[in-house]
């Protein structure tokens, strides 16, 4: 798993949702652990697309349950 992608994603999550970047770790669920709602997930996805140069279609976004899911998706699609 890419540490650069993880730390970059953590920065976005902190900016959008106020979760401390250190708490944004691979095993955490966006909804259940980090208390991020569907509206914030859209913002996070748009910022991640810009930051990492990937496309995250809505049907893919729905599958990204954990931070690790997102890091893996971004790493393999950028």
């Amino acid at each position, binding site marked *: 798993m890419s540490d650069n992608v993880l730390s970059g994603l953590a920065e976005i999550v902190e900016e959008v949702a*106020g979760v401390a970047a250190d708490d944004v770790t691979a095993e955490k669920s966006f909804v259940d652990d980090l208390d991020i709602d569907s*509206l914030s997930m859209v913002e996070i996805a*748009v910022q991640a697309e810009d930051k990492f140069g990937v496309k995250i279609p809505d049907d893919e976004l729905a599958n990204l349950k954990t931070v690790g899911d997102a890091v893996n998706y971004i790493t393999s699609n950028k």
Partner: protein
Amino acid sequence: MTSGIEVVITGLGATTPLGGDVTSTWDALLAGKSGVRPLTHDWVEKYDLPVKIASQLVVDPTEVLPRVEARRLDRSEQVAIVASRQAWADAGHNDDTVDRQRLAVIIGTGIGGAITLLTQDDLLEQQGLRKVSPLTVPMLMPNGPAAHVGLELKAQAGVHAPVSACASGAEAIAWAYRMIMSGEADVVVAGGAEACITAIPVAGFSQARTMSTRNDEPEKASRPFDTARDGFVLGEGAGVMVLERREFAEARGAKIYGRLAGIGTSADGYHITAPDPEGVGQSRAIAASLRSGGIDPADVGHVNCHATSTPVGDVAETVAIRKAIGDHPVLTAPKGALGHLLGAAGAVEAIVTVLSIRDGIVPQTLNLENLDPAVTLDVVAGEPRKIKLEAAVNDSFGFGGHNVALAFTPA
């Protein structure tokens, strides 16, 4: 009056161009301060707007709210949250003091999330759909301020958002009165919020020729009842009060600021923006507030006026006051200092009225130097006046011909 139910005020909260809370606002009002300052936004020069002043918050809500909370809220919602938290704490409420199904929130706004609407429209135009915030709709909807406060307090007796232009804040308080009197709620958090100091509202009001262009003397621009008045000054802010059924408040040992004895509402049926110069609809609202409160007009010592510093409106209001109450009430117009907070005005000025009764003091009408000869009533000017009040009325009127009068009495 036959129900035996009384509505009392137990908590106050505000953020205004005179101060970041109720105490600082009240002190600045009595001290003769003005909230009107030059606009420094780039859109003033960009569009060559004729109005270059506004009554602007002294404490920005983003300084008070956590960053992530603030970025999810329109500015009108931010000020509602700030004022509501103050009022809730001031009332001594906590998680256990009221059954949430007996708690309502009613917060009005005149314009709603105009800043969000314009910002997001710019993003759509310039950067496309992807950049439009998924929070756009909950940030721009006019029920947003009420909804966010209601959610925070978990109010489940009802969350409402009256929209009646510059009467919205007073209309919210009138609605709270009705909910308590009808037995629908024991406690209601009610008020108004407005934050629309941005290009299109300023341009629109300017084109309607309703705003002061005294740009070279911002602090003297808002001058209700003065012969040299030339329009209102746009303001921003929020005022919120906690209203309760008296028995409920007394049972929990709450301090009581005063009583909302009666309310009156009416509509002019005259013109979309101009008030009826004969003040017929306005006087009906004032008379109704006294009737519903069982108040003898002779006992009304003071009217806290809506007077916005426009040539027509200020005089029409005094005609209405004379019709409904008589020649004896002492008047003031807080918009001389506060500017016009639109949907928040009625709520902030209701708070001022409650404090006038509590402290026995009526603030001066700032910038009233030469009373319009068409006004034959006693308007406080120069400095505050000490006066013991048995009852006082607060007027609020809005574009559309909405009229609201709130009649307050001592605790």
